[in-house]
């Protein structure tokens, strides 16, 4: 007869800790989370840590290669650009732009999307179906194109970019939240609550919303990666952040003419964009897998 650990009492964990356990077991996702945390910290505190002022131009140190190159200077760790500004400082500052602003737009889109999605999901009738059709329509226009249009109307600039991207991310949120709510409404525990006498608002607050936060986090992570790419793309196209802002996409565009002379001016900002998006995607994938595993159990 085999001996079991029958004295080992496993306490039942709530969904949040189950999710965290599943998530934690995926090493790639944890690495992504650490990178994500790193970028967030840099975005918040980076400007305080830059060795030089990102906008300070030093005419004596133009186009220095990174310090590991022969011609490089260790004072300018990653080299300088064509106006003599320190790359490292600019890259750090750029985190606040590309990553930080992407976070802001994603959170904004989340909040607005939650509002609209709840309205779309909970209401019925002609109004609702008309709204849903419009929504499906809005989904078909890509976020970047929408952002470009809005910027074309309002003119370039960072603030307009934020509104544009927020607006462009909105349909994904509304669509996802609406679908989750509709799915929840079909569940039997909602019917049980209704039979108990709960009205729509109570059902929403106590039953539906607590069950949608998992889907919300997944949606948020996907929107965040889109936001980072879109902000960088708009910066690259010259429609987003304007010079002399140290936004990563803009830095790549600025360095375009110097592609022969200083390839690292293009490689480095783009690399950071890539790693930032990669970290968010790792977290997003990890979350999706963790949610699926939890639901299967």
């Amino acid at each position, binding site marked *: 007869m085999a001996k079991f650990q029958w004295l080992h009492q496993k306490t039942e964990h709530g969904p949040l800790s189950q999710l965290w356990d599943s998530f934690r077991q995926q090493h790639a996702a944890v690495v992504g989370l650490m990178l994500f945390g790193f970028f967030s910290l840099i975005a918040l505190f980076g400007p305080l840590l830059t060795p030089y002022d990102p906008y300070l131009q030093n005419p004596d140190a133009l186009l220095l290669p990174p310090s590991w190159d022969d011609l490089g200077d260790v004072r300018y760790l990653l080299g300088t650009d064509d106006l003599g500004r320190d790359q490292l400082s600019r890259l750090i500052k750029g985190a606040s732009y590309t990553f930080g602003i992407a976070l802001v737009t994603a959170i904004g889109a989340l909040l607005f999307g939650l509002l609209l999605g709840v309205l779309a999901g909970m209401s019925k009738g002609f109004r609702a179906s008309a709204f849903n059709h419009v929504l499906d329509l809005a989904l078909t226009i890509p976020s970047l*194109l929408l952002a470009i249009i809005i910027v074309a109307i309002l003119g370039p600039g960072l603030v307009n970019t934020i509104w544009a991207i927020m607006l462009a991310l909105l349909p994904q949120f509304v669509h996802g939240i609406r679908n989750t709510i509709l799915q929840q409404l079909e569940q039997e525990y909602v019917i049980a609550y209704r039979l108990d006498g709960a009205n729509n608002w109570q059902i929403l607050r106590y039953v539906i919303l607590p069950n949608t936060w998992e889907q919300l986090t997944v949606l948020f992570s996907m929107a965040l990666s889109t936001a980072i790419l879109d902000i960088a793309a708009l910066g690259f196209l010259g429609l987003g952040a304007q010079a002399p802002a140290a936004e990563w996409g803009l830095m790549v565009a600025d360095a*375009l003419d110097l592609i022969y002379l200083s390839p690292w001016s293009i490689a480095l900002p783009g690399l950071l964009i890539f790693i930032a998006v990669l970290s968010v995607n790792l977290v997003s994938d990890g979350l999706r897998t963790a949610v699926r595993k939890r639901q299967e159990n």
Partner: protein
Amino acid sequence: MIWHYLIRRLFLLSFVFFALTCFAFSLGHLFPGDPLVNFSGISQPDDELMPVLVQQYRLDDGYLQQYIAFLQRILQGDWGLSLASQQPVLHELKLVFPATLELVAYALLISFVLGVPLGLLAAIKANHWSGRAISTIALLGYSLPIFWWALLMIMLFSIGLGWFPTSGRISVLYEIPAVTGFMLPDILLSGQTYWQAALQDAIRHLWLPAFVLATYPTTVMIRFTRDAMLNVWQQSYIKTARAKGLSRSQVLYRHGLRNAMLPVMRQLGLQFSTLVTLAMISELIFSWPGIGLWLLDSINQRNYPAIQGGLLVISSLVILVNILMDVLHTLFNPLARKQANG
């Protein structure tokens, strides 16, 4: 019953087009500057011409009449003049649009040919190192900012190795008259003596932009196919089919593939719009003379009639593809047909 569904879709399509034209019309007023200039594209209308145009565009009447006049003009083919070149916008669009279509078509082709088998492989060998490797590469490709990727490829292959040209569709040495607007067929149709060299040259120009543009849809295909296949593989009917005695590959091709491709097709429709946007950026970097580059230039030049026209065309394309994918999905999916009728 299926006709009902198709007719409903057609109604939706027309409704969407109307909404689109409404939006395009409103741009004429939303853009800064004189609406008359925005609509007509004539940068300096002389005093004789102005009242005629105002009359024609019904600019003195309410918005509804203006919109109707706008709609009539669109349907008749008068899309105004480009502020930059003073050429008809529709004419310029006819030149640049096929170039984008060609690029996007080749990218999609590559993504299908590469993406679906790799995705299936990643699903079948999900726990094997090969499956994991494919998923990892797909994730990496999915996270790439396309402009950076394009520039890296240019630095490596064009500047570094010199294998491919950095820009354009074909070398300026070759003069290919535009019959269809698509470069490769045009070369074959042109009947020039040096058509083989021209073909090779065009392919060399095509290769890098198509590859860069194909990166995103290929990774999307891999990821979606893998997810769909993993999901399908868990289903009861797959286990039943295996219990019937069918071999693994038989089950895969006969039952697995059909069911897995359905959600993939639907997702493809949604991803197409992203593909178009990425095409625009690629055109910018590779100086590919397509509608994306043209639109971006117009935006920079504040060329409002051109922006209006370009927007209309691109959005129409995206919506058309979406509805097409939707219809295809419903046609091939018995369950969706049931939902469409019920």
